[in-house]
């Protein structure tokens, strides 16, 4: 028997009842659609979540420096060694302790009983790179530089929130604030922080000035890396900051991107994969059922074919091919609907759809396999039929 004849007969058999065949494929269509959408959306969403990490979190590293009784673990000038590392975009050292967080700060020396002039604010010492390291900008004025630090100038930079609380709105008259008894000139206001937002309510002074408030040692280092360098820099930072004592530093690095992607996929996949597989099984049972009914209906046809010289294997092959083609049709439709679904979901969520080519190829194949498996038993029943009984 010519293969083309076999294919022709299978197609004719399937198209003899188009509505029934279409309904038969429905289960497979649902199953394949679910699987394709699940896998596609998981891949798309996974990629998306990584994209968001990239933007904010994936490049931010914080190094916590524990207190040390003797020599400081991290010297103030160690920050220069850190910024020389490849992949470091900006870095700043910050000193803060439990005494400095509750200092009384006033914007003038008058005692006005009708107003609350003294605010309890956090005072920090920091290196000049802080605005970049906190991913903010100077909304007014400027940050202090190494010159201020070396001369131990009594200058201060206010966080946006702190400036508002103290009533400092303009800098052209060089306003002063009082921390304790001493006056400090406000030279800048820092705002729009996207990292370490609590700095917004702080008063920042040069390290050389901070000693007066007990801010002797670096307690925290903020590092920003270029994209993808976070893992590497996180490994190198402790050694750069504190050669010999790197182990004592605590590095808080973002989760590595691959892990983030895996996690995202795992969460979405598990449930829907099961759902898709269940639909596929239901689809297979549907095909098996309908093919079996079809075999019973076409007993006379089977008898006729046997009388025309068809061997059992010819009968089996025809019914097997019919169910396989039904499954394949379901797979093709399911893959198409699934791809459209992924694109639609991505469009609604404003994501970039991520389509695996193998998914589009494998889905129809999976449908065909489902049809093939579903057709095994009915085809066997058809082939086993005795021509005498079939023609009766």
């Amino acid at each position, binding site marked *: *028997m*010519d293969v*083309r*004849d076999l294919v*022709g*007969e299978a197609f*004719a058999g399937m*198209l*003899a009842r188009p509505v029934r065949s279409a309904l038969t494929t429905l289960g497979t269509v649902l199953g394949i659609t679910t699987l394709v959408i699940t896998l596609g959306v998981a891949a798309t969403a996974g990629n998306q979540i990584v994209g968001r990490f990239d933007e904010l979190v994936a490049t931010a590293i914080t190094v916590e420096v524990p207190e040390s009784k003797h020599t400081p673990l991290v010297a103030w000038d160690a920050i220069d060694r850190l910024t020389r590392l490849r992949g470091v975009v900006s870095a700043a050292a910050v000193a803060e302790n439990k005494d400095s967080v509750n200092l009384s700060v006033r914007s003038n020396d008058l005692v006005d009983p009708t107003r609350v002039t003294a605010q309890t604010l956090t005072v920090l010492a920091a290196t000049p790179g802080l605005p970049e390291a906190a991913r903010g900008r100077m909304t007014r004025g400027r940050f202090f530089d190494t010159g201020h630090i070396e001369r131990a100038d009594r200058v201060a930079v206010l966080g946006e929130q702190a400036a508002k609380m103290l009533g400092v709105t303009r800098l052209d008259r060089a306003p002063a604030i009082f921390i304790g008894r001493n006056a400090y000139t406000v030279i800048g206001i820092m705002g729009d922080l996207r990292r370490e937002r609590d700095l917004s309510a702080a008063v920042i002074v040069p390290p050389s000035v901070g000693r007066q408030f007990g801010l002797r040692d670096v307690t925290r280092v903020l590092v920003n890396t270029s994209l993808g360098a976070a893992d590497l820099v996180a490994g190198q930072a402790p050694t750069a900051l504190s050669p010999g004592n790197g182990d004592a530093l605590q590095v808080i690095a973002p989760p590595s991107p691959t892990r983030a992607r895996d996690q995202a996929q795992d969460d979405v996949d598990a449930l829907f994969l099961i759902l898709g597989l269940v639909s596929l099984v239901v689809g297979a049972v549907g095909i098996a059922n309908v093919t079996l009914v079809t075999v019973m209906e076409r007993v*006379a*046809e089977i*008898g*006729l*074919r*046997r*009388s*025309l*010289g*068809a*061997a*059992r294997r*010819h009968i089996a092959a025809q019914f097997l091919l019919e169910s396989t083609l039904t499954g394949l049709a379901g797979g093709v439709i399911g893959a198409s609907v699934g791809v459209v679904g992924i694109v639609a979901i991505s469009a609604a969520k404003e994501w970039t759809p991520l389509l695996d080519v193998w998914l589009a190829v494998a889905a129809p194949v999976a449908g065909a396999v489902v049809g093939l498996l579903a057709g095994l038993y009915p085809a066997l029943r058809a082939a086993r039929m*005795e*021509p*005498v009984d079939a*023609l009766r």
Partner: protein
Amino acid sequence: MPEPVIELDRVRKDFPSRPPVRALADVSLRVDPGDYVAVIGPSGSGKSTLLNVLGLLDRPTSGSYRLDGTETTELADGARTRLRGRRIGFVFQSFHLLAHRTVVENVMLAEIYGDHARKGRRERALAALERVGLGHRVGFLPDRLSGGERQRAAIARALMGEPSLLLCDEPTGNLDSRNTEAVLDLFDELREHGLTILVITHEQEVSGRAARRVRITDGVLVEEA
């Protein structure tokens, strides 16, 4: 002397039941090329069993059946199927045309099993339809044809592949007298061209047209004058 088409020698067929049923009791029959034989008998006489044995659809319990000189009772299933497809054309009472295929497609179906060339199949089918006088109905679906036309289409299908034997099971059982007449005329014509025809029937009208009549009663075959 030419080889007989059918040569049955003491063929016996028992069906295992309680008590066992003997459907064919030592039947011997010889049909030569060009013969037109009618097998007549009441229902339950063993007619259908004889047809199944002759059509290689069933194996006899004992005895020998030579078709065109080939001993068939020893053959494996596959070889019997091939022999059936090549040598025997079946005509059924209920036509067995596929409802969703046109007349010519139904006729072409006879050649898809076995080693026939695909090339020229349609032409051969059209020729077979022309032979049975259905040249004007080739593109029709079976349900648009009259009963007689359907049976002629089925005969055209049986004639594809030049069988040595046309085996007909009550070919006019579903037809009115006018259509019966047309089918019987066709048998006469085919027989004149040398085809061997064996018709199983219980209708007097059909058996009357045959050159030879054998009667089967309770599994016993008797030649009628």
